């Protein structure tokens, strides 16, 4: 589904990613751990193709196509979706409009989604205007559900969400990644997590640790996370040696 080969990325003239290699197969969910500032968000933003993330070297292949320099909307249409950590407010654009955009015209079904997650009272609010942290997460995930991507990129989906809403967020992610489908699952995901909470809701197939722009460890996500909890990221650095 996704192959990243020797990816080097600059942000504002600073080298942030230094030779990333990763492969995510169809139906797989991967987790990305790492300290603040290690380059995790940069990787997600580069995969989506945002301006300001300059690929200096390397290649990104998605569904067999080289997407390294493809415009954002073409990647979206090809099946990549992303949730934003701090999305901008769109004045005058309602969540209802946004869901219609994501679903490429299937506005009613998209609005129905909002109802099913108890978020229908937000449909006529301007996107992200005055939304709390948890509301932003829900709104982002609803948009992704409407968009129905094959590869979902999630940046700390659990941050700022209260315990009660964690269940809902977990449900939404499970649906996005077809976690209830045990056979023939086609949806893949790459999730950045600091707290690891999301692992309680969404089983991940593989974990990666990023340190200073490089992936230094790959393996069972639960074991990696336990290791980080016990020994800190320093152990990953040491282990790398």
């Amino acid at each position: 589904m996704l192959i990243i080969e020797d990816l080097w990325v600059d942000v504002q003239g600073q080298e942030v990613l230094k030779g990333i290699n990763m492969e995510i197969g169809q139906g797989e969910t991967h987790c990305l751990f790492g300290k603040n500032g290690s380059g995790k968000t940069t990787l997600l933003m580069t995969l989506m193709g945002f301006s300001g993330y300059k690929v200096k070297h390397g290649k990104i292949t998605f569904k067999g196509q080289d997407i390294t320099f493809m415009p954002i909307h073409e990647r979206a249409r090809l099946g990549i979706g992303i949730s934003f950590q701090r999305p901008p407010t769109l004045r005058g654009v309602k969540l209802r409009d946004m869901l219609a955009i994501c679903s490429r015209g299937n506005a009613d079904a998209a609005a129905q989604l909002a109802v099913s997650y108890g978020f229908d009272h937000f449909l006529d609010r301007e996107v992200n205007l005055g939304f709390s942290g948890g509301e932003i997460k829900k709104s982002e995930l609803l948009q992704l559900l409407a968009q129905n991507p094959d590869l979902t990129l999630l940046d700390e989906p659990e941050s700022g969400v209260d315990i009660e809403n964690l269940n809902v967020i977990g449900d939404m992610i499970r649906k996005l990644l077809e976690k209830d489908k045990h056979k023939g699952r086609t949806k893949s995901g790459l999730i950045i997590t600091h707290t690891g909470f999301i692992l309680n809701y969404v089983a991940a197939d593989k974990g990666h640790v990023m340190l200073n722009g490089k992936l230094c460890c790959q393996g069972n996500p639960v074991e990696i996370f336990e290791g980080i909890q016990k020994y800190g990221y320093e152990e990953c650095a040491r282990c790398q040696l």
Partner: protein
Amino acid sequence: MSAIKDNSPSDEKELLEQFIPASQAEAIQDLEELDKEELKRLKETGVDLSAKDRIGTYFQTNCGVAECSCDFQGVEMLPITEALKKYDGLKEYYWKLIPREKDAFTKEAADDLDNGYFIRALPGEKVVYPLQTCLYIRTDKVRQRVHNIVVAEEGSELHIITGCATHPKLTSGLHIGVSEFYIKKGAKLIFTMIHNWGEEVVVRPRSAILVEEGGTYLSNYVSLKGVKSVQTFPTATLKEGALARFNSVIVAPKGSEIDTGARVILEGRGSRSEIISRTISYGGKVIARGHLVGKVPEIKAHLECQGLILSDEGIIHAIPELEAHVADVDMSHEAAVGKIAREEIEYLMARGLDEEEATSTIVRGFLNVKIEGLPKELEEELEAAVRECQKGI
């Protein structure tokens, strides 16, 4: 430095002399004389001559009144020339809020009036459907001078949609419109003005509003098409507990200069006001003014100027002013001018829209101010104007 120079008296005089008085141009006697193209343009200006959902119509071309009728008993509507005769010069209202000598344009309207409307909602009468008025310049190079007076008597409610337009084939003209509004105790007036002038038309409205105790004045101003120059600065004075709200949506294509806004003087306790403007330039110059003057305690006023520049050449000059004369006032403003944030465009692109679609979604949202009582055709026009903006980028 201001983007648009103030007119000096000699400039004003020179401007006037470029046009012939409307009284020297032919006016139509009957609405039937309007052709298809004209009717279409009028519809885009909010004027629906089938008069569906309108309780009355005042229609003036050049200097002549082609229609002045109102089905609703509670509203009196007359050409102002007749009202001046009938009511002995309308001494209470005529030139009471605006000085005749204010500038060359007011003087011109005082000395050589073409016509205009007098509309009065009788006490306690509440009108559900709007009344429409249209000031239409049909002949090239004409200067049209009108004086309008609107009186909403105590406890009445009235909605006026006024469309100002020129013949689709006409290019140049000068419109001078003096308007005085009197909103009496507890009355409410919604005044929606749509400008649809030609690209070489100069427009000088001079408006003032008096809102008495507990009265409400809601003004909507929409100008989406090219016009050579508009310069206006309506001033509202609010008495105790009165409310005035000014919404404007302005799109300035290349070659247009639009200098507009509102001043509200809050001189009654508990009065409130809000001035909201959304301006877009794709090559034109816009000055978005707002001046709130708080003279007594316990007033509340807010000013919001938002401007988007969608081309390299446009100028938007937002001038928000707050003037408090006492301590106990609640006055605020926010102003933001600039281009569309890259981040917003990319947010929408990540949801599958291409760059052009993303931009148009943002512009549409930007212009989406809640306008009470905006006719449906006009909403469609707003949409079309947004699409037009795309071509200018």
